[in-house]
């Protein structure tokens, strides 16, 4: 079995910025993503507030795309929004599936 090292970018964000984040993630080269509903607590409060769920966005991407996504999130969202981002190593099958085929869109 031929696995290829890639990066898993995880973004946890308040729901209001979800669509903007997804657009950015794809524009920066992700070929797919997985999203789930989560709840959280961080520096901007959390637990025991209902109606304020967050989303977790995960994308398996190449190393440079991962860096770009993390940098984008940091630059645009860290100041005004409840957002965190972290990167992990993953191994995938079919490495070509996750390579950005379309740099511009």
């Amino acid at each position: 079995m031929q696995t290829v090292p890639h990066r898993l970018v995880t973004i946890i964000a308040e729901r209001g910025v979800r669509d903007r984040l997804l657009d950015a993630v794809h524009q920066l080269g992700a070929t797919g993503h997985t999203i789930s509903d989560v709840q959280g607590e961080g520096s901007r409060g959390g637990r025991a507030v209902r109606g304020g769920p967050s989303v977790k966005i995960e994308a398996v991407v190449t190393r440079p795309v991962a860096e770009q996504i993390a940098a984008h999130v940091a630059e645009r969202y860290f100041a005004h929004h409840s957002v965190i981002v972290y990167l992990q190593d993953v191994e995938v099958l079919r490495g070509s599936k996750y390579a950005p085929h379309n740099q511009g869109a």
Partner: protein
Amino acid sequence: MLEILLASLLSPVVLAFVLGALAVAVKSDLEIPEPLYQTLSIYLLLAIGLKGGVALSKTPLAEVAGPVMGTFALGVLTPLTAYAVLRKLGRMDRTNAAALAAHYGSVSAVTFIAAQSVAAFAGTPSEGFLPALVAVLEVPAIIVGLMIAYARGDRAGSWQEALREVVTGRSIVLLVGGMAIGWVAGAEGTAPISPFFVAGFQGALMLFLLDMGMTAARRLRDLRAVGPFLVAFGIVMPIVHGALGVWVGHGVGLSTGGAAVLGAMVSSASYIAAPAAIRVGLPEANPAYYLTASLGITFPFNLTLGIPLYLTLSGWLA
């Protein structure tokens, strides 16, 4: 008063709130799933919007104008009184005082709904167009709260983003959207949906308050952290604002029940729209303060004692 108080306290809706709080106290594994919570809040907001819109379609504009202006004035005034009290008496820092001011100036839709039910139950139903006042009351206070903070140069958040957050927030969209639909479709057009939105309403509200009881009880854990001043503030401020609301209500020509419900609205503290806006516009503010006060203290106080109090007050003024 005692009669209204008992009728209110022994209604299934308030008892469900108590049951929720008890469930947390005994560490039950009872849980209202997040999607059910969201479904209930979508349902309740849309339902009161629809009802208000239908009522509005039958009400002459002249009758609504006074209450709308009075409510708007209260929405500008009450964050200022709350801010002054917090700064002068509570010696709270500017950012947190502004955040709390935004919450106490704005409105809790569930308190409104509960007040409406109790008023109807007590034989003094409120005017049908009152949901329109909820929409009018929700936004200005949050703007005023943010303006106070921004005028003082605390600019970690984004003013425009916060404003956008409020007016496009789901509570405004559903409330105003529901009103528009009810207004356009009218009583006849909304007849087919009324078994769903009217008959089911009180039961859905009961489930919602079961969840609110759990949330409020969880918030109470933070009580020690917020200190005695904020606890007193969370009870006395609503009484002052509520009395003011009842008085203005009578001034703008509302009925006994209508003025009492307006009082409950004015006294209530937002815990959906305001927190969302403050998180974006004033991220440095500490949620332990504004959430514990609005959800853990003011909401339970209003639900149990406040609403009967405003009704009694309103009866005296009538």
